């Protein structure tokens, strides 16, 4: 279980992290004073901020929010960056204080295995159902044109409803 978890965790962390690190940051509720002098560090700070939830807002990241707590957490992130901590450490530290709830990207562990597995499972299940249905549907060759077949079906139904014997 742990090996699979680790692999998934790795793959899953990779995707959004790459997506975010390489995109130019869009400043949201930030003020000029909060920004770090070094643009590379500031980029890191914004990327991290976009992965952290503002706990007193309705579904916003601390990067987007104007709330006081968001501002404090943004400052905390930058303080940590300046002390040389790497991204994972900062996220782990905040997670240790506020729980998984503060991460906008749900962690990969036993509790969220279903969440992360589900998309693949859905596709596989759907594909299997479609293929299974086809194997069984291939039974009768199509003698009639679909339009004609429907007219026959409708007539049969009407006759049945009126109690006439099928001819």
């Amino acid at each position, binding site marked *: 279980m742990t090996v699979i978890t680790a692999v998934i965790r790795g793959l899953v962390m990779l995707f959004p992290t790459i997506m975010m690190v390489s995109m130019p940051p869009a400043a949201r509720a930030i003020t000029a004073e909060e920004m770090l002098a070094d643009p590379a560090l500031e980029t890191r700070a914004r990327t991290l901020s976009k992965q952290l939830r503002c*706990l*007193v807002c309705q579904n916003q990241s601390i990067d987007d929010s104007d709330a*006081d*707590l968001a501002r*404090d*957490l943004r400052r*905390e992130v930058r303080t940590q960056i300046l002390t040389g901590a790497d991204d994972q450490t900062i996220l782990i530290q905040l*997670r*240790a*204080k*506020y*729980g998984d*709830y503060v991460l906008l990207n749900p962690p990969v562990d036993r509790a969220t295995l279903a969440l992360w597995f589900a998309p693949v499972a859905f596709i596989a299940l759907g594909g299997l*159902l479609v293929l*299974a*249905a086809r194997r*069984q*549907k291939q*039974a009768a060759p199509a003698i009639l044109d679909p339009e004609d077949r429907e007219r026959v079906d409708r007539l049969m139904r009407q006759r049945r409803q009126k109690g006439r014997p099928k001819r």
Partner: protein
Amino acid sequence: MTQPRLSFLLPLLAFITLAAVGATALYGTLTGSRTPDQLPSVLIGTQAPQTPLPSLDQSGSGAPVDLGRFRGAPVLVNFFASWCAPCRAEAPALEMLSDRVKIVGIAYKDRANDTMSFLEQYGNPFAAIGMDVDGRTGIEWGVYGVPETYVIDADGTVKYRHAGPLTREVIDQRLMPLIEGGGS
């Protein structure tokens, strides 16, 4: 007929699962067993953070507040602020509690003068008061709003956190059992 019957049942089963989640959640919300605005504290079961804080007292000087001083008996840690309206509402409750257990107050993002005025007006139930001027101690504790109250047992382990003003119910049902339970 020709299609496996089961696949036609799947949508219904999926819906029933979803409805069950919704129904359980609603039931919990209506009976009060579910408290969505209370974030469970991650610190529960761990040692309380030991960050010493500059103390507030009438002369403005004093030894820094250190939780280690209170080992040996349960203690409450209450985050409050002069600008926090619900904190005023819970002041009487804290007064009453202070007879039974020591309470350490942490003034969260507040100014010394404002804190002192607040205490003069609403009473001072605290055995010691620390000043968390920039909110960093709050982050240490996982505070996300004021007021918040933590129950620390005799060994210094965090046992419980209540976010929001203390009510009679919370005190009787949650805090007192832990305080009277005493130790670990």
